[in-house]
């Protein structure tokens, strides 16, 4: 009887451990992570990237709806194909990166969760902070859980760990975040499209 109780306890402990959410660190050692932005403007669209991605997401493949997390982008990592234009973008009139160094998305809840295989589609609702203005937004996201793929990605297959790929696309109005509201709309579209495709690896510690 004692043996049975011990077996049961061990099985329960094992089950709870395997079902525990895993923390994923989105500071990618390979430097792949970036948010891409795109807005139409006079002459040609302005497109660029923001590579300074960090943050952590806690994800449980057995219960994706319980996902929590926070993704941070360093505002001064935004760059476009022209250095002068990049400096303008960082300046006081646009993002004012000196005063607002971080762009943050804080996940509040995942809704409409659908899982097929290792991919979960959902709507992520959370607080998006840009240039010091925080607004609640909903973003359609896709989370792909790649079990045991971390070591393979860093060319050390013996290293254990999973990967979590996060994809999404959404649109914001720059004026809502105090970026030249109502100004230069004939030259630079007020609508900014943001696309993210980022990967998180096992969090240290």
């Amino acid at each position: 009887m004692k043996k049975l109780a011990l077996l049961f306890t061990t099985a329960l402990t094992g089950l709870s451990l395997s079902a525990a959410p895993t923390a994923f660190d989105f500071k990618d050692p390979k430097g792949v992570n970036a948010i891409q932005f795109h807005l139409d403007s006079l002459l040609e669209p302005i497109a660029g990237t923001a590579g300074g991605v960090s943050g952590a997401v806690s994800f449980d493949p057995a219960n994706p709806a319980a996902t929590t997390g926070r993704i941070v982008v360093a505002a001064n990592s935004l760059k476009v194909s022209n250095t002068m234009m990049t400096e303008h973008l960082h300046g006081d009139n646009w993002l004012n990166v000196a005063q607002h160094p971080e762009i943050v998305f804080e996940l509040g809840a995942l809704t409409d969760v659908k899982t097929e295989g290792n991919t979960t589609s959902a709507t992520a609702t959370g607080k998006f902070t840009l240039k010091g203005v925080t607004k609640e937004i909903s973003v359609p996201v896709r989370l792909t859980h790649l079990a045991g793929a971390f070591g393979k990605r860093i060319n050390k297959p013996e290293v254990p760990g999973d990967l979590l790929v996060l994809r999404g696309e959404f649109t914001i109005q720059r004026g809502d975040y105090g970026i030249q509201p109502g100004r230069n709309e004939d030259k630079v579209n007020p609508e900014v499209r943001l696309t993210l495709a980022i990967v998180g690896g096992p969090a240290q510690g």
Partner: protein
Amino acid sequence: MSASDSAPATHPPGIPAWRIFLRLLGPFIALATFARWAASGYNRGWTKNRIETVKLDEITGIEYIEWQDAFIPGIELLSLGVAAGLLLFAVTFVPRRKIQP
């Protein structure tokens, strides 16, 4: 052979050397700017000093952008170069001021 054939080439009378120089330099600047712009792929956007290359992270399937330094003149540099060249050329046709005695 006539006498005029063997005579050394002379500039039209009354055209100073600086006018001739600018008359050649102006079109050269305009053409060189156009040639540089055309050789870089007729970029009808703004000047770029880095270009993006799309790469694929094989394990995750993420397509990411890698920036590389490159100079691609845009429409504003083309306009500036051609305008400067034409201006230099045009300046050579401005009549000399007559000095009043």
